[in-house]
């Protein structure tokens, strides 16, 4: 870093003119970089990359390795800890909470995919026009997106609380003594928190989709209109295909949100009694007093494998255009 110009000046004079670079591309571009520059690039990428590998990818691999052990979190992992596929075997056949949690994640995904995400897209389509107040509508729908899921959970507890909550009171269930325990009843509490989570998800999707809609070339719609297509036909046959890239992002965002779900279930009842999720089982097994690290890691691997689907989809669609 110290006095960069003086020490590098001689090296640079040997470098070809910028004009020549454009034509001879690749190989020559490097001749423009001094050794110090290359070292700097190595540092600028290397330090963040090392941190990323150490704190994200290292632990990911470690989770995979640990899933084949019975490590309890104390002392080193030794050869004696290796148990092969036992964790997985027990997970799929003996652990009573796994399939409920798995299906709750699936329900979460299905709810977001078939209800919340389409609602967000629908609002975006409605708001994507010259209309009075469209900005106010957008701001309102978007507002919950800035709130944390913890706060969202608290705000909705005020709706759902058995005695004091708004819903039971407004339908007279408190007076008639037929209280519905929205968050306590394991048959309905998942849907109750899905409504709360959707409050936030819909606005997110709306804003992403609106950005996509605005990027559609208006002349396309005009052409469709001139050709006599209805608005609905135009949307499905002209707009939607053009929006393929944004559709991929929306699919990925929806799937990832469903797999990551944790906060809201955790603050409502620590993810018990109807609110079990894979993420919560990982937390409970590998970080609570039980300290079944190996077993918890097997659940983490299941979650990882499912997550790879949307992640690979995202990378394969976006990386083509990058760099």
């Amino acid at each position, binding site marked *: *870093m110290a006095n960069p110009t003086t020490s590098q000046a001689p090296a640079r004079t040997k470098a070809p003119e910028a004009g020549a670079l454009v034509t001879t591309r690749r190989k020559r571009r490097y001749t423009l970089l001094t050794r110090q520059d290359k070292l700097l690039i190595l540092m600028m990428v290397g330090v963040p990359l090392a941190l990323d590998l150490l704190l994200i990818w290292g632990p990911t691999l470690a989770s995979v390795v*640990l899933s084949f052990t019975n490590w309890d979190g104390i002392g080193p992992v030794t050869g004696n800890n290796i148990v092969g596929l036992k964790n997985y075997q027990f997970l799929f056949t003996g652990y009573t909470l796994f399939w409920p949690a798995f299906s709750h994640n699936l329900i979460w995904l299905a709810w977001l995919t078939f209800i919340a995400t389409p609602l967000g897209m629908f609002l975006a389509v409605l708001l994507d026009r010259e209309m009075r107040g469209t900005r106010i509508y957008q701001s309102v729908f978007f*507002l919950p997106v800035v709130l944390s899921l913890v706060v969202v959970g608290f705000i909705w507890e005020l709706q759902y609380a058995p005695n004091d909550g708004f819903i039971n009171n407004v339908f007279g269930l408190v007076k008639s003594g037929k209280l519905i325990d929205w968050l306590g009843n394991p048959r309905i509490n998942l849907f109750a928190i899905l409504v709360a989570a959707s409050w936030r998800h819909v606005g997110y999707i709306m804003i992403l989709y609106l950005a996509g809609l605005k990027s559609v070339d208006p002349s396309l719609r005009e052409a469709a209109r001139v050709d006599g297509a209805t608005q609905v036909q135009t949307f499905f046959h002209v707009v939607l295909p053009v929006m393929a890239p944004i559709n991929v992002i929306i699919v990925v965002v929806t799937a990832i949100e469903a797999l990551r779900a944790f906060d809201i279930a955790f603050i409502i009842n620590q993810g018990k009694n109807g609110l079990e999720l894979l993420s919560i089982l990982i937390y409970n097994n590998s970080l609570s007093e039980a300290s079944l690290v190996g077993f918890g890691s097997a659940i983490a691997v299941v979650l990882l494998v499912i997550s790879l689907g949307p992640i690979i989809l995202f990378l394969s669609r976006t990386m083509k255009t990058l*760099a």
Partner: protein
Amino acid sequence: MTQNYQFLPSTMPAIFPGVAGNAGKPKRRRIRPARVALHMFLGAMVALWLFPLFWAIYSSLRPYSDTVLHGSISWPSGGLSFINYQTVWTQADIPYYYVNTLVIVIPGVILTLLLASMVAFCCTQFSWKFNLIVLMLFTAGNLLPPQVIIRPLYWVYLNTPIANLGSIDVSKFSFALFSDNNLLYDQYIGIILIHVVFQTGFATFVLSNYMKTITKEITESALVDGANVLRIWWSVILPLCRPALAAMATLLFTFMYNDFFWALVLLKSGDKRPITSALNNLQGEFFVNNNLVAAGALLACIPPILIFILLQKHFVAGLTLGSTKG
């Protein structure tokens, strides 16, 4: 990339020539039933959307005795007051938790932007063998569910020695340099670190998207002029990315402010918790009634709502930068 900003609601272009064409005709004053139905539907949705928030505000403004006496759906007989806010503010130490949060979030955002812009700069302005793989590693890392990595990460935090060089104390608040237990675990810097590393993945992706639209010739001619890469990054590329950086800063602030999970696992001391996990702790012991819960929750969402109101344009731009490509 300027195109992205055209997508923003604030600068919404007139993209419906058909509609605009009608405007000049005499029949434009006619009330269209479809439009009325649209506004009615959207109005109903808006009411539905705002209601939970409105209800939280209303609950927070009522003394609990009043709710008990008249039921939660009733007109306030004793009037509305800020008594719940006062109680939460002073007894639950909300200002202290705001400081805790800011001590984590502000360095977190700045460091994330610095690291991510470095990586994005190197990956988009120079072609080298592995730049695409590096970008993929960062992007994919951010998409992983945090729970997948949490147990090994917890181990790393418990086994990384960190120097204890005293602390910066401001009355009750104490910021350790760099660790008060010689570990990463249960430290502000530990939480800052994981936020930075995790969000660098997202920020790198978005900033690369932005920077790839900057022509490489700018960097090349700066190199010919004798600037080194660090200098080009700092004084040529970063100024060009100001809109993207502003958008990312807004978004990252909200992401980090809203975090619950990292602090839940990687912090132990109650007095180091950021506001979201502090709220969760208060739930059992301090929040004896729902009106207090409402006041606490609303106090916690004031900063992000302020950011949203003041910087909505940047916020939305940040979200859409990553998703729309010119």
